């Protein structure tokens, strides 16, 4: 049985949520309300709803993350890029990660790269290789090259 919105909010609005424990108590029926919570103005709630959606690992949940990935607040796009690491077996998630690797915000690109690394998404290696040349900060250059090395094995 799906949780109410208030119940879900109470479950996720923690300083340091233990997502695997929280998500183990959720079902696919909770996804619509998680998507609603991901649209809240309070980023403390919205980003955590996105993190939960990533762990739900379904196309419906990725649809919710897609909205976050297009959000004008980079905090939400960072949350989306990070959340996708737990949905990366889904083609829709990989497509979204591909988009986020091109994001104008360095924080978003960093977490998208880390998701590629975590999930070993070989289909994105050309883009990751290009990032190693394009990125202007040392941290991002090194990260891009490291990720490329790993996924190119």
């Amino acid at each position, binding site marked *: 049985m799906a949780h109410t919105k208030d119940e879900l909010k*109470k479950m996720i*609005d*923690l*300083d*340091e*949520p*233990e*997502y*695997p424990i929280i998500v183990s108590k959720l079902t696919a029926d909770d996804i619509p309300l998680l998507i609603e919570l991901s649209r809240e103005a*309070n*980023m*403390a709630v919205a*980003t*955590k709803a*996105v*993190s*939960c959606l*990533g*762990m739900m690992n379904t196309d419906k949940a990725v649809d919710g993350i897609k909205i976050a990935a297009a959000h004008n607040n*980079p*905090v939400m796009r*960072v*949350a989306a890029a*990070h*959340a996708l690491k*737990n949905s990366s077996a889904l083609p829709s998630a990989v497509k979204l990660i591909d988009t986020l690797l091109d994001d104008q915000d*360095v*924080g*978003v690109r*960093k*977490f998208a790269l*880390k998701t590629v690394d975590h999930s070993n998404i070989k289909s994105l290696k050309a883009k990751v290789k290009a990032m190693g040349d394009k990125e*202007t*900060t*040392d*941290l*991002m250059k090194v990260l891009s090259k490291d990720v490329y090395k790993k996924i190119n094995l």
Partner: protein
Amino acid sequence: MPSQNWESLGGVITSNISSVSWSANRIDSFARGTDNALYHRWWNGSSWGGWESLGGVITSDPTAVSWGPNRIDVFAKGTDGAMHHRWWNGTAWGGWESLGGVITSNISAVCWGPNRIDCFARGTDNAMHLRWWNGSSWGGWESLGGIITSDPTAVSWGPNRIDVFARGTDNAMHHRWWNGTAWGGWESLGGVITSNVAAACWGPNRIDCFARGADNACYHRWWDGTHWRGWESLGGIITSQPTVDSWGPNRLDLFAKGTDGAVYHRWWGGGPSWGGWESLGGVITSNISATSWAANRLDLFVRGTNNAMFHKWWDGTTWGPAAGINLNLHIKILTGPTRFTIAQMVDSMREVYATAGITVTLASTQTLDVSNPTLAPLNDCDAGTCTSGNPSAEQIALSNFRAGAGSVDVVVYMCRSVSYVSGSINGCASFPANRPMAVVASYASRYTLGHEVGHVLGLNHVSDNNRLMTGLGTDNITNPPPDLIQTEKNTMLASPFTN
């Protein structure tokens, strides 16, 4: 900033402080705010009121004097260069009143009797000028001539007596005096001084003058009723103008900032020699304002590195506030909080930590440049597993930005977002050895700051929404302020980061 053993009175001030006492256990302090208005805080004998804005746009340090109980007169230069005046008559503030002129220095004001005020300032001709209140009207402006290269300093040792000091173009100290009938002077009192003059009178026909010398030591000249004595070197290396106060006959307390930014104190008790120098600690960014409301009582006011006003007092036996347990907190901002202000978060933390007897001193607040390529990617901090003693590479990278923080000071980095291995979090407190720190996200709750620093001090999560260390979300605290239980307080007090 003044850390432990200085009381923070808050505010953000942009001038030196002027403090005055119009009766026992009463202090009024004045300073300019960031909006250039005059601000006022007062001690009523049991608590501090304020900060109260007294408005105006002032372009000099304020100068406050009192000629009697429940009376304060404050002077400052306005944007038009004129001297402006506000006064407290015991019931309400009058003013602002323009007293005209075009002045080029801070103002020195002195009261030699009830309902009498004499104000001195340098004019555009660099001469010293005087305006006075005779109890019913303002006279003036009167030029007292000379060419002075410092603020004037006026004192009075009795009714109808004024002595004024300033540095001349030869860097010597010069003196003019009013004897009740006429102005004498200018008289050169020699020396080579590199600061404004500080002067005090501890009895009739007695004046003690202090200034910094060319070697940055503090020098002393005094009028013993018959002759000028000195210059005498009191040593030290001072980096501010000296401040002197006398709380009784044969007593002088001298203060100045040292090379380490701390306040230093020497005193004279009537004997053949001076005591001191003793450090009173702190790191200050202003001159020292000293006032005394009773024998053997001193109150000092300074601005700290965070531009707040700080207070320290001598109660006749010891310097207050009593040495307590302190936590020095530095905030480094990559992205500021969006739901609460830093002041709200720090105040909320202070409120909770005070219940453990811990004073949280906001030792510095610094905005880091996130356009810096090294910092930009760290604005969204990946805290890794966020477990104690296991900081991520990004937390270690952030910990390199702890300028101004000591090894036991806690640095909190305010980031745009913080994530750990499985998703978004409000903050994380894992830190490298000898670099106590936490990261806090821009969307954190009011209590996340105190919560994360609680982890730094060794506290763990609890399942109780009425406690700071709740693992159920500090946004969900049911009965604010949240509690600390005794064992948590003991852990915090035993932490190497409280001392």
